[in-house]
């Protein structure tokens, strides 16, 4: 009772200070922020923060296309951002309210320009690669010391997969990333929108399909960390989080991440403001808060993803800025590819192919 009375009085004081209790609703990916930042934001700005999470671009996109999501800040990936901008889902940023924009890193903003010309609608939050996470001791036990953990061979060669199957292999349930990966592996253009080229991914997956335990886009963090599975094709930072959890648990699991040497996809998660956001001013305050170098560094240090903020690099932990799996070298960056959104007809081909692959028939 005493506490509730206290909160109540504090609430009144706060309401008096800001004229009205303001709130910002943020919809971000799961396991994607240092949660102490959320409290820090509330304390610094006096704005109530309502923070929800999702684990697939598709779920976010459907909310954006339906409209009236009620969110002020959302975090789509570049290709999805581009399509949603075209559909009229976002409002242009008011750059005068974002002084911290000067901290952003041109290496990244020149790349996100492809999805959001002039970076008019979104700021980069994190970026990363889609690659392979493995439980090293198990893999070496099964495939020997020289197991190709830095190559797509590990998961796309049926001989390897046959041996790994019993131990558990997860793939992302994200066709717009998994199809390009297979195309890159067989030497085709990963960003092809030609249905005939896309169809070439089918035999690659069908050959290994019996050995894949599950297609899922978030469960692999825990499964890999617990030792439930040996291999996960997933997002860089997620796998590095699994590495950390396994190390903390001291359960004999040792996770390593590699962006395959044949070429891996590079993606960018962007923060944008829906066109019907209830509180666009508060959304700008949140974006500016996130672009503060120390805050951005805290987020990266926690989730092991690289960010698009140059100034934050001074505050990054050594095992983040110094890890080539997170911040690849200049040459390694050359080896990464990006993709563009599929047109509706092509998207249907891709989804249908993916359904076929997943159902194995």
């Amino acid at each position, binding site marked *: 009772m005493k506490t509730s009375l206290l909160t109540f009085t504090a609430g009144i004081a706060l309401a008096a200070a800001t004229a009205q209790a303001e709130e910002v609703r943020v919809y971000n990916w799961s396991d994607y922020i240092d949660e102490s930042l959320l409290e820090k934001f509330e304390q610094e700005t006096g704005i109530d923060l309502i923070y929800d999470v999702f684990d*697939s671009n*598709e*779920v976010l*996109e*459907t909310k*954006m*296309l*339906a*409209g009236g999501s009620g969110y002020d800040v959302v975090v789509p990936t570049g290709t999805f951002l581009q*399509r949603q901008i*075209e*559909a*009229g*889902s976002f409002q242009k940023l008011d750059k005068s309210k974002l002084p911290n924009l000067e901290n952003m890193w041109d290496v990244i903003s020149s790349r996100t320009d492809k999805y959001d010309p002039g970076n008019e609608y979104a700021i980069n939050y994190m970026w990363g690669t889609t690659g392979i996470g493995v439980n090293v001791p198990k893999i070496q036990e099964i495939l020997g010391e020289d197991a190709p953990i830095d190559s797509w061979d590990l998961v796309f060669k049926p001989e390897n997969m046959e041996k790994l199957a*019993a131990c*558990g292999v997860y793939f992302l349930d994200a*066709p717009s990333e998994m199809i390009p990966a297979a195309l890159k592996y067989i030497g085709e253009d990963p960003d092809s929108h030609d249905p005939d080229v896309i169809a070439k991914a089918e035999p690659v997956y069908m050959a290994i399909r019996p050995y*894949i*335990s*599950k*297609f899922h886009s978030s469960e692999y963090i825990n499964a890999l960390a*617990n*030792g*439930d599975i040996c291999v996960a094709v997933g997002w860089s930072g997620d796998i590095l989080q699994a590495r950390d959890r396994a190390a903390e648990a001291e359960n004999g699991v040792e996770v390593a991440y590699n962006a395959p040497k044949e070429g891996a996809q590079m993606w960018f998660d962007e923060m944008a403001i829906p*066109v019907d956001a209830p509180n666009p001013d508060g959304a700008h305050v949140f974006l500016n808060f996130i672009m503060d170098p120390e805050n951005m560094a805290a987020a990266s240090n926690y989730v092991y993803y690289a960010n698009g903020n140059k100034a934050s690099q001074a505050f990054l932990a050594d095992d983040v800025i110094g890890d080539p799996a997170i911040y690849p070298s200049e040459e390694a960056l050359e080896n990464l590819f990006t993709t563009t959104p599929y047109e*509706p007809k092509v*998207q*249907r081909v891709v*989804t*249908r192919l*993916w*359904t*076929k692959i*997943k*159902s*194995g*028939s």
Partner: protein
Amino acid sequence: MRRFVLIAIPYLWLLALFLVPFLIVLKISLSDIALSRPPYAPQLDLAAGWEGLKSFFSELDFENFTFLTTDDLYWKAYLSSLKIAAISTALTLCVGYPVAYAMARAPEEWRPTLLMLVILPFWTSFLIRVYSWMGILSNEGVLNQVLLWLGIIDTPLQIMNTTTAVYIGVVYTYLPFMILPIYSALEKLDGSLLEAAEDLGCSRLEAFWLVTWPLSRNGIIAGCFLVFIPTLGEFVIPSLLGGSDTLMIGKVLWEEFFSNRDWPVASAVAVVLLLILIIPIILFQRNEQKQREAEG
């Protein structure tokens, strides 16, 4: 007047919660996909008046329904959902009937407690209960650990991410919906009928088959509907417990809606699903009514 109001209430309910949503879905299923918010066209523009209405109706077509016939994915998914729903209903009946029977035969003072025990799981979130099944069935899960420890198996059983896990999840989740109507039918059963049957020379098994079973038939039918219908469109259980090869229409719907962003085709799939459900139910009820009339 009062009677009219009383009848109007269920009809208003049906109108607001079934017919109106159905018409909205039907409208979307006749539209075309578009890159806009919301992602389909034509939109009904009431401000344009009669002209707007006319152009709206002229642009509707059945293209999405013909599209469903061009790809065998949809038929396979419908059939596989029907199969999973039918098997689950049969399994739930096999498990639920004896439970309901035992409850109805238990001493009267126990019954409220037993009933409570059946309802109790509803107090925990459905999602949490499905997640606990993941903990039980996974390779490192409780079930495999116990079986390994007992030495019954050498390698963990792969139950998680298979259709078996879906059956377990469905039977577990919908069991109360089977037990409750059967229990309520059995509880009302007049015990003297059974005595009479035995007096007239029936064995206990015959008495069960000739008296108890037919008299609990309404409960069985209600229970089967309550299990079959939601299972047919089930999405959560197969996506959490099932493997990628568990093909169900709920999942296909999700993919049309979310991955393809094709609301019109998704709506067409939903309309067909509804027809698949409704037509047999109407036929069944007609048949029942005819039977009743013939008996009466």
